[in-house]
């Protein structure tokens, strides 16, 4: 289980996270929704140890990671897979080399075993035969799928998806969502997905948390969130314009 308690973070005078609390159950898919600039990506970076909080704690199976450094933090990260917003594929390597990279560098297994696992990982995301191509030679949707294959090839216990469908057309959005759901059913990892995709994201979520102005304002199963009486949640889900921004 991932437990977040009283997380606070400011950049200069701007408070991004304000006493954020959340629990992510083991083996579940938890989706964080919220408006752009609401602190979702900053929150995710705290969970993967890229940003340190000003106050508060992040516990992964009871281990506080907020003050861990070096090998201790790497030990936690070895349990992680992360799908970055832009894919973060190494552009000097082919797709197959990208997927093979964590296997080759972290697990030190024989080359033929790596090749088999890379082929299997690419097949799982529906990308047989594209291994030799460079990331620049494939479409945005394919790049996201290669990034998912790379994140899952080491069979992590916890997978973070940072807006995995941003910039994709509705068909590809559904394809990626169903891919996440399908892979989750197969590998039973704990998934935390940051997303804007309303209402499609409700189809794959076990729990949805709404992050607004640095706080979780509502958390619950998708049905409860969709029926929420909270004005902020309703406004976000229905895509109603925010008159407070003075347009």
């Amino acid at each position, binding site marked *: 289980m991932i437990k977040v308690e009283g997380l606070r973070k400011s950049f200069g005078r701007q408070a991004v996270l304000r006493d954020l609390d959340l629990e992510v159950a083991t083996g579940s898919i938890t989706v964080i929704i919220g408006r752009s600039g609401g602190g979702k990506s900053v929150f995710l970076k705290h969970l993967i140890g890229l940003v340190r909080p000003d106050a508060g704690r992040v516990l992964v199976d009871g281990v506080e990671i907020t003050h861990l450094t070096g090998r201790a933090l790497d030990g936690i*990260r070895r349990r*992680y897979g992360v799908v970055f917003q832009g894919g973060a594929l190494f552009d000097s390597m082919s797709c197959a080399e990208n997927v093979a990279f964590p296997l080759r560098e972290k697990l030190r297994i024989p080359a033929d075993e790596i090749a088999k696992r890379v082929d299997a990982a690419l097949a799982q995301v529906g990308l047989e035969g594209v291994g030799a191509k460079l990331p620049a030679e494939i479409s945005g949707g394919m790049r996201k799928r290669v990034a998912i294959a790379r994140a899952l090839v080491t069979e992590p216990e916890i997978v973070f998806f940072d807006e995995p469908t941003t910039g994709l057309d509705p068909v590809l959005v559904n394809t990626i969502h169903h891919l996440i759901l399908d892979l989750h059913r197969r590998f039973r990892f704990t998934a935390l997905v940051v997303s804007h995709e309303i209402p499609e994201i409700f189809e794959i979520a076990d729990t949805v948390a709404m992050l607004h102005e640095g706080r979780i304002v509502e958390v619950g199963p998708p049905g409860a969130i969709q029926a929420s009486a909270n004005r902020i949640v309703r406004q976000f889900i229905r895509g109603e314009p925010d008159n407070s921004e003075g347009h």
Partner: protein
Amino acid sequence: MADRPLAPALRPFEAVGGRTISVVDSLGRFGTFFVDALVAIVTPPFKLRAFIDRINYIGFRSLLIILLTGAFTGMVLGLQVYLTLVRFGSEAFLGPAVALSLIRELGPVLAALMVTGRAGSALTAEIGIMRITEQIDALTVMALNPMRYLVAPSILAGLVTFPLMTALFDVVGIFGGYLVGVELLGLSPGTYFGEMQTFVDMKDIMTGFWKSVSFGVVVTWVCTYKGFNVGHGAEGVARATTQAVVLSSVLILVWDYFMGSILP
């Protein structure tokens, strides 16, 4: 305690203090970056493939510009030094004058400046783009140290390639001086090379060697640091690249003076 606005008379002091803290903070991060790189260099596993790739990137791809600038530097030296020496009837010393200028001073400095312009800027831009596209974050969350993959091989490759590039620059420059002094201006080949052997010592060659080694470290350190700490977006990469080239070039000239004062 809440921040209260300072009295107007104190604001200049606040600005100076803030700037001083910022500079000291930057220097501290610059220093700790180098220490982290050294730790990554001396602790296994060593990334041989990345190291060879960096030698190609910094050294091999800079060959053409080194050969071209080396040849023309030697030719300019040959012409100008000949025209000066001939006034004193000392044109026989053209060979040693060209060789000593190149080996002790111009070779290490100009080769380093050329490699900075070609490879240093590209190094900063490449690492900077990796930073803004989250490729460095991807390495970090894979529990792999980006210093080991990106910085350590670059600094090691700088250590190896800068002296080699300098040696090439010197040799091509000496032949450039030969082309002008001997082939165009009529000095005898025996005089050009014979006097060179008399006047150029091993300590002159070692002076140039140590300079080039130190420039290799300085340039790769500055350029990787700037790439690692790039700002946001394309503008951030452009600014970091410019800063890397300017700072490296200034440090090469400043460091050259100190090395010249220390070395025999």
